[in-house]
């Protein structure tokens, strides 16, 4: 794998982690948060600060990042989770803007606009992950971990509570669901998972600054979730891969570098509109439908290929399935 491809793969995994964590809010709970980049930043800055001021221990850095994201996510949840829909979006947007301002202004801790540099690669069980291939492993493990956690949550009672709120919060609360608590828990878990993306990012890039975590990053993450497919385990991963790889292909076009940023934004917007028009369920939904069509087509072909057998002469000697009309007469 070329270094360029490896770089893309690592960023696909980082954005995959972030998109899956955001889908827990948007896709599962029906909460549109525009603050996910905050928890991306919390993960990255936690790693940097732990390493620069405390210890090189990987596990300590990861735990600090996850706990810090949980605490900040909890504070965010308490202040914003009682609001509904548009007020939550505005609150989360404001939270993201304020957080970046704090990163910019709190120079002694965050380094301000200049950021923090000199982050060393992690060392796990004495093995330093200082090669690109080892960073790929770290990024893939983080993505797999987050996808598995997301899948387990989706199958759990907590997941069912989140989906009930997504479908109809008034009905859910009237049937005994403490929706504010469930939403707060969803925000906290989502924040903790997002911080893992920040951990991998900080270790890989070795330099972090507020510019990497502004509100456009949150909008990009939301676009990944919507394009990939809301509420599907692998949808956000697909969306993340697509919106990471496609813009990078622009580098091969004869476009002045100064125009690349605006062009990327236009591509994100156009992609969201195109997917919403073609399939509101996102790319994952297209895939699911194609799969079901394929299964039906395969069954149809097999049934045509099966030689005709006289009634009562099943290959295993069992009674053959009744035809629909026969089944109807039995009932």
């Amino acid at each position, binding site marked *: 794998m070329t270094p360029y491809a490896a770089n893309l793969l690592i960023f696909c995994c980082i954005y995959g982690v972030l998109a899956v964590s955001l889908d827990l809010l948007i896709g599962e709970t029906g909460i549109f948060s525009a603050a996910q980049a905050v928890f991306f930043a919390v993960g990255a800055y936690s790693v940097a600060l732990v390493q620069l001021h405390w210890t090189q221990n990987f596990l300590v850095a990861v735990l600090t990042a996850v706990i810090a994201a949980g605490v900040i996510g909890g504070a965010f949840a308490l202040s914003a989770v009682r609001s509904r829909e548009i007020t939550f979006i505005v609150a989360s947007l404001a939270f993201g803007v304020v957080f970046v301002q704090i990163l910019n202004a709190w120079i002694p801790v965050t380094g301000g606009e200049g950021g923090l540099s000199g982050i060393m690669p992690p060392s796990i069980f004495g093995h330093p992950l200082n090669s690109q291939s080892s960073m790929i492993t770290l990024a893939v493990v983080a993505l797999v971990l987050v996808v598995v956690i997301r899948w387990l949550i989706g199958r759990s*009672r907590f997941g069912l*509570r989140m*989906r009930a709120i997504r479908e*109809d919060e008034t*009905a859910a*609360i009237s*049937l005994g*669901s403490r*929706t504010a608590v469930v939403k707060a828990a969803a925000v906290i878990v989502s924040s903790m998972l997002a911080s893992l993306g920040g951990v991998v990012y900080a270790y890989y890039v070795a330099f972090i600054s507020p510019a990497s975590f502004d509100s456009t990053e949150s909008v990009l993450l939301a676009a990944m979730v919507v394009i990939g497919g809301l509420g599907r385990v692998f949808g956000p991963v697909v969306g993340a891969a697509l919106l990471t790889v496609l813009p990078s292909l622009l580098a091969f076009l004869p476009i002045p570098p100064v125009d690349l940023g605006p062009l990327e934004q236009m591509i994100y917007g156009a992609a969201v509109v195109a997917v919403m028009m073609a399939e509101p369920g996102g790319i994952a939904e297209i895939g699911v439908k194609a799969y079901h069509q394929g299964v039906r087509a395969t069954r149809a072909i097999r049934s045509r290929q099966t030689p005709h057998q006289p009634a009562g002469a099943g290959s295993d000697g069992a009674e053959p399935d009744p035809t629909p009309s026969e089944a109807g007469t039995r009932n």
Partner: protein
Amino acid sequence: MPDNVRVSFDKVDVVFGGFKALDNLQMDLRSGQVTGLVGPNGAGKTTIINAVCGLRPPDSGRIYFDNRRVDGRPAWAMARMGLVRTFQELRLYDRLTVRQNVEAVSERKHARRKTRKQAVDTLLEKFQLADVADRHSAEISYAEAKRLSLARALAAEPQVLFLDEPASGLDEDALTALIGLLRELRDQDTTVIIVEHNLEVIRRTSDIVMFLANGSLVAEGPPDEIFSREELSDLYFGKRR
């Protein structure tokens, strides 16, 4: 307060802007009865359900449940105490399956997967929804959706069940089944309150009818007595010339 009173409204006001949806409401709902709430549009029938189930707390006055004051408590707390409702517009979880609609409520009562499955299966069988258990609730017929709405409410194991227009859109067979179910619930000592425009359903199901107008209780009594009073009929249908 008499022993068999489960829910009591004491001078309850609910005001929307300048309009009093409930005006000094004084009313008792008794246990083990099916109570029909009737009245013209705007009488405050659905507002009563919203107030007692916590979706629209009263602006003044008190609500008691089993002699405990409960007004002002959040809707989830009311439901967990046993004050459970259905909605006129059903409000099902459309992108969840029929089974998940029931399970999303049942899971609070049954933490263990096995007992939860049994409880959900029992309700699906009882409401003839087993055959559509794995379909999304947006894909089932209106009559099935109505039954699911009831099954979901019963999954919360209510002590007092408020049904908002349960009979609307049901054919005669479904109506007969609904009436049978209401009688069964009453026999199990569940207090049932029905808001219904179909007065024939109220007549066939209710032990007592409460007639509301302009946010207040105007009359109460057995269905035949209430429906035979001309002045109430005038209030309901408008004065005949």
